[in-house]
């Protein structure tokens, strides 16, 4: 069978994800999809796929995979990768032939890694998406012995694409600044509470998963209106604060509505940074206006687009030094 790959070992949560489910949130179906869309899209571009193609997302430790047919793949993450026992580079597309065994190690930094295959993983779309949401039996976590088929793709020319280190997102370091747009339930918080949220440091706790990240730190004070609201829509990035004052940041598998007051929402351009923060990581929140947040996202989209063009060799990347600081500049034409 063409494009068949077999999972030999699955040490931790491994799921198929794509860009997520759209249009079903009013029926209570979460959006799901890539926890780190930045890395996942680059993984897809490395093997010549559209950015939203279904791929493998692993939590912390990657799987061991056997190829039962030729394929082109890329592993994305700060991780050791071996093909038939020999070390190979992550952030690079490689050719695998029938019988080859790919071993993906444990991430040195970050929390989620990705394995993309040229053609994408073939899967049954449920409600328009392949993203696993096991709570509603929309897909399931993968296990050893599972076999995956790949979509058809011409493999020639798709291997050997490489993203230089300076263009990769950096998830090392234990402290991050995460930007947020305040609201929409600010009236449920005291002025001191908002001040606490914006000035103190919060720690990601082990009670964090694809649904939400629970943070620990100084309690955020509510106003006399209290922590409970009449249930409202809830989106990934929303920062809910229940009565104990400890914030919970909703992630991709968040339920679509919620009854705790929301002090803020993480900006779309930064949500992947939080997603990649391990338990123990320190987070500080900085407020920006909604217009600024949208500018940041558009800038980020341009960067991802430039990276895609670079990987498809429509652009070249140069290192530029400006007053002692090094930047990466792209030259060429996108589209």
């Amino acid at each position: 069978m063409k494009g068949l790959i077999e999972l030999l070992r699955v040490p931790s949560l491994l799921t198929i994800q794509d860009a997520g489910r759209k249009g079903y949130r009013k029926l209570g179906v979460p959006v799901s999809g890539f926890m780190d869309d930045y890395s996942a899209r680059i993984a897809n571009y490395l093997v010549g796929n559209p950015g939203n193609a279904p791929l493998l997302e692993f939590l912390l430790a990657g799987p061991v995979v056997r190829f039962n047919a030729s394929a082109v793949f890329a592993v994305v993450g700060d991780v050791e990768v071996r093909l038939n026992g020999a070390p190979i580079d992550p952030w690079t597309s490689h050719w695998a032939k029938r019988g080859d065994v790919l071993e993906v190690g444990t991430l040195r930094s970050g929390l989620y890694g990705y394995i993309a295959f040229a053609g994408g993983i073939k899967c049954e779309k449920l409600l328009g998406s392949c993203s696993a949401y096991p709570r509603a039996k929309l897909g399931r976590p993968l296990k050893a012995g599972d076999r995956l088929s790949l979509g058809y793709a011409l493999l020639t020319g798709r291997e050997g694409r490489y993203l230089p280190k300076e263009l990769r997102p950096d998830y090392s370091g234990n402290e991050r600044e995460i930007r947020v747009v305040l609201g929409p339930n600010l009236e449920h918080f005291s002025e001191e509470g908002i001040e606490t949220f914006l000035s103190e440091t919060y720690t990601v706790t082990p009670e964090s998963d694809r649904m939400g990240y629970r943070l620990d730190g100084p309690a955020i004070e509510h106003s006399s209106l209290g922590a409970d609201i009449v249930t409202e829509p809830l989106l990934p990035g929303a920062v809910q604060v229940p009565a104990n004052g400890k914030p919970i940041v909703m992630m991709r598998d968040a339920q679509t509505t919620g009854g705790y007051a929301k002090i803020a929402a993480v900006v779309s351009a930064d949500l992947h940074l939080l997603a990649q923060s391990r338990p123990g990581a320190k987070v500080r929140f900085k407020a920006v206006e909604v217009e600024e947040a949208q500018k940041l996202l558009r800038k980020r989209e341009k960067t991802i687009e430039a990276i895609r063009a670079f990987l498809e060799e429509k652009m070249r990347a140069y290192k530029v030094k400006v007053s002692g600081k090094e930047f990466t500049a792209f030259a060429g034409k996108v589209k």
Partner: protein
Amino acid sequence: MKPELKPAGDSALLVSFGETIDEEVNEKVHALAKRLEQARFEWLVEVVPAYSSLAVIYDPTLVGFEEVKRAVEGIRVTSERFEGRLIEIPVVYGSSYGPDIEFVANYNGLSVDDIIEIHSKPVYRVYFLGFLPGFAYLGGMDERIATPRLEKPRLKVPAGSVGIAGKQTGIYPLESPGGWRLIGRTPLRLFNPAKEPPTLLQPGDRVKFVPIEESEFREIYLEEWGEGVD
């Protein structure tokens, strides 16, 4: 009443008619949701209604907050009625299907038959769906049968279980952990991803519970799920 429009992050605008649980306000929410969907704005991703609020989710690479705000402000929904369908939901009350029904009866100083009668009498309103795929927030339960949640939630509640939590009643669309007092179970499938739409209930629908016998439950269950119960 003029709603408040505010950002919920950089990809959604929250329309809020005030924090209230009110049928007329909820009708406005659904009417506005429908109008927005019909307007086919290219930047509109989807809308998510709740009791008295609506999230307008948009693509911020295509449009800014102010433009979305103006577009929403331009939609008039003042006197519109949103009339949902009436869905009958068959329920076996009591026994192993509703293990907490005696507790609910004792707690409220009523008999089990009273609970069944009071619970199956009203026409409930689906204010919105949330919490789990296909889970309907129903309004209209008689407060005489209100009962607090379990102190220790069950690890596994079967799909279709009908429960009471405080002044609310609801149906578990999926097998999941849960702390509601279970009074019965429906054989209908509230969430089926193979169907379009995947949920039995839609926002704005009206619901009537119809008591049935265990034999009927088994028949309908087999039809709905393609397999026998348990």
